[in-house]
C-alpha cells in the first residue's frame, strides 16, 4: 500500500520537479556562474566580481535600479488603492447575481496579449491619438500634447496591467469577511474610515499582501510596458539587462544585473512581510 502511494506521488510530482529543475534551476545556476566570470585583457574568462562592481561604480546603473524599485512600489500601492474599493464593491455592494459578470469584465482585457493592450493605450494617448483628437475638437486644447513617454503615463500603463492580480486575491479574502462584522462595528459607533482601517484592511491583509507581491514582482520585471509607454526616458532596470544581453552582447554583465534584480525583489517582499507582520505561508494560501 505504502509503496503504491510512493509511486503515485513520484508519478505526479516528477513533471513538476523536472520542469522546475530544467527550466528554472539549471538556467539560473548557469546565469549565476556567468555573472561571476569576467573577460580579462588577454581575452580569457576568469572568476571575478567585476560585473557586480561595475554596477556600483556606474551611477546610471544603480540610479536606474533605485528608480525601478521606487516606481514598482508606487505602482503596487496605486494598484491597491484602486483595487480595494473595486473588490469591496464587487463582493459586498453589488447584487450577488452580477458578481460573476463583473469579474469576467475584469478578466476580459487579459484575453488580449499585453502587447496589444499597450498598443491600445498608445493609440489613445499619442500626439495624434484619440484623446488629443477629441480635446482639440472640443476646443480644450489648441495644440496637441504628447501624453506618451512620461513617467505618469508609464505608471498608468503598469497599474492597468497589474490590476487583475490585485483585485482577484482581495475579492477572495473579502468574500470571506462576514458582513455582520462590518455591521457590528457600525453599530458600536465606528464611522466608514474606522471600519476600513480596523476591520476591512486587517481582515483582507493576507489577500492584499499576496496581491502586492505578485504586482510588485510583475512590475519590477516588466519590460514591455515601460519600454513602449515610457520610451527612452523610462529608465527601467529590465531595459539595462536587455541592453547588456542583446545590444552589448555582454552576457556576464547582464546575468549580474539579473541577479541583482532577483535579490532586490526578494528583499522588498521580505521587508513587506516583516512590516505587516505576516508570514509567506499564510499569504500564499
Amino acid at each position, binding site marked *: 500500500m505504502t509503496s503504491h502511494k510512493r509511486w503515485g506521488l513520484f508519478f505526479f510530482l516528477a513533471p513538476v520537479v523536472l520542469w522546475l529543475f530544467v527550466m528554472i534551476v539549471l538556467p539560473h545556476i548557469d546565469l549565476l556562474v556567468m555573472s561571476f566570470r569576467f573577460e580579462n585583457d588577454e581575452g580569457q574568462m576568469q572568476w571575478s566580481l567585476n560585473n557586480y562592481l561595475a554596477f556600483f561604480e556606474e551611477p546610471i546603473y544603480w540610479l536606474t535600479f533605485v528608480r525601478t524599485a521606487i516606481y514598482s512600489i508606487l505602482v503596487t500601492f496605486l494598484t491597491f488603492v484602486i483595487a480595494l474599493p473595486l473588490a469591496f464593491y464587487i463582493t459586498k455592494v453589488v447584487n450577488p447575481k452580477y458578481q460573476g459578470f463583473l469579474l469576467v469584465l475584469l478578466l476580459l482585457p487579459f484575453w488580449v496579449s499585453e502587447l496589444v493592450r499597450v498598443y491600445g493605450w498608445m493609440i489613445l494617448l499619442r500626439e495624434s491619438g484619440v484623446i488629443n483628437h477629441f480635446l482639440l475638437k472640443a476646443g480644450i486644447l489648441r495644440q496637441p500634447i504628447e501624453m506618451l513617454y512620461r513617467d505618469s503615463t508609464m505608471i498608468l500603463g503598469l497599474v492597468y496591467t497589474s490590476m487583475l492580480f490585485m483585485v482577484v486575491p482581495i475579492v477572495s479574502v473579502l468574500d470571506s469577511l462576514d458582513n*455582520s462584522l462590518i455591521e*457590528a*462595528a457600525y453599530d458600536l459607533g465606528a*464611522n466608514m474610515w474606522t471600519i476600513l482601517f*480596523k476591520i476591512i484592511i486587517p481582515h483582507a491583509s493576507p489577500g492584499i499582501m499576496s496581491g502586492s507581491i505578485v504586482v510588485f514582482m510583475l512590475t519590477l520585471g516588466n519590460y514591455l510596458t515601460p519600454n513602449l509607454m515610457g520610451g527612452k526616458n523610462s529608465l527601467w532596470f529590465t531595459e539595462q539587462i536587455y541592453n547588456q544581453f542583446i545590444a552589448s552582447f555582454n552576457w556576464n554583465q547582464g546575468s549580474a544585473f539579473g541577479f541583482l534584480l532577483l535579490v532586490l525583489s526578494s528583499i522588498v517582499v521580505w521587508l513587506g512581510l516583516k512590516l505587516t507582520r505576516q508570514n509567506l505561508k499564510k499569504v500564499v494560501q
Partner: protein
Amino acid sequence: MQIDLAVKDVSKTFDDFVAVDNISFEVADGSFFSILGPSGCGKTTLLRMIAGLTEPSAGTIEIRGKSMHGIPPNKRPVNLIFQHLALFPMMNVGENIAFGLCRRGDDKATIKNKVKTILERVELTGFDDKKVDQLSGGQKQRVAIARCLVLEPAVLLLDEPLGALDLKLREQMKVELKKLQAKVGTTFVYITHDQSEALVMSDHVAVMNQGIFEQIDTPQNLYNSPDTPFVAQFVGDNNTWSGQIRHCDQKTAEVETTDDRVFRTKIRQQLQPGDEVDLFLRPEAMLIQPDANLANLNRFEVIVKDLLFDGANSRLLANPLDADTELLIALPQTHQYDYIQKNDKVEIGWDEQSGICFPREGQGSKVPGSALSSLGLRPSGFDPTRRRGKQG
C-alpha cells in the same frame, strides 16, 4: 415607568413582500422583552430597524422619547448582539470590548477601567489578552454582551444569540442572561424562535407571525390563555381537536369532536351552537386515571400507542378508543404510572377550565383584548381577518 423603546406603526416592505406589517409596541425601562416567532416571520427585520441597519418603510421608532428617524446606527443609543456574535477576530478580547469606547473618544485610563469592570461583571476577569478563537462558546457569548454593555446602551438588542450553542450550554446561558439582565438593569429586546428561551427569560413576550404581533403578554398568560390559535400551537405543545358546538352559555360550551366525543370546555368569546371550533389542550392538562370523585372532568378512554420517555418531559402517545386522533399526554415520572404499557387501555380526564377553544380558522372571530389592555400593552396590527386574507 419610563418607556425606553417605543415602536409606532412600523412597517417594512421589500418589493411586494411585507416583512413587518404595521407593528406597535412599547418596552419599559429595565425590562426583558422577547419577540418570539418562527423563522421568516420578520423579527430580525424588526430588530434591524430598531438598530438602524434597515430603514422602516413607514412608522417611527423612538428611543427614550427621541425619534430615531434618519439617525445612523453608529449614533443610536442601542447596541445589537448578532446571531453569530460578530466578535472581531483581528482583535483580542480587551480590544473588542474597548472598540466602542475608543470610537466614542474616551481617554485611555477610563477605557481601561471600564473594560476591567465589565469583564469582572461577566466573570471573565483577566481575559483581556486572549484571542477570540481561544474562547469557548459561552465565553464568546459573554464577550459579545460585555462589548455592548460597556457602552451603556438604552436598549440592548439580541438576535438569537444562543442559537449556535449546544443544548446544555444554551440552558445554562438562558439562566445566566436572565441573571445578568437583572444585575445590570439594561432594557433587553431579545428575539428568538425558541419558545422556552422566550418564556424563561422574559418579562413580556410578543408572539410574531407573518409580520404582525399575534399577542403581547407575560409568559404565563401566553401559555395559559393564548389569544389566537397560532399562539396556542406555537407556544408549548398542544393537542388539537376539531369539532362543533352543541350547546353553549356565556362561559362554557359543549363541543362534539370529529372523533365523536363530547367535551365541556370554558370559552372566552361568544359562540353559537353549530359553530365550527378548534379545541386545544395541553399535554399536562390531561390526568391519567383520575380520581373518581373529581367533578367537572371530561373523561374518556385511550389506547396507549407508545411511551415517549424524555425525563421530566415524558409523554404518552395515545389514540382515543376507536379513533385515530393522536394525543400527547404528560407522563409524570413519579413511578405512580410505571405500570402503563404499550396497548394498555387508560382512562383520561381533563378539567373543563383547561380547554382552549377557538372558532375554526376561516370564520369571523373577535379576540378579547382585555388581558392586554390591563398590561398597558397594545398588540397593534393585529387583525385576524386581514392576516387570513394574506394567507389566502
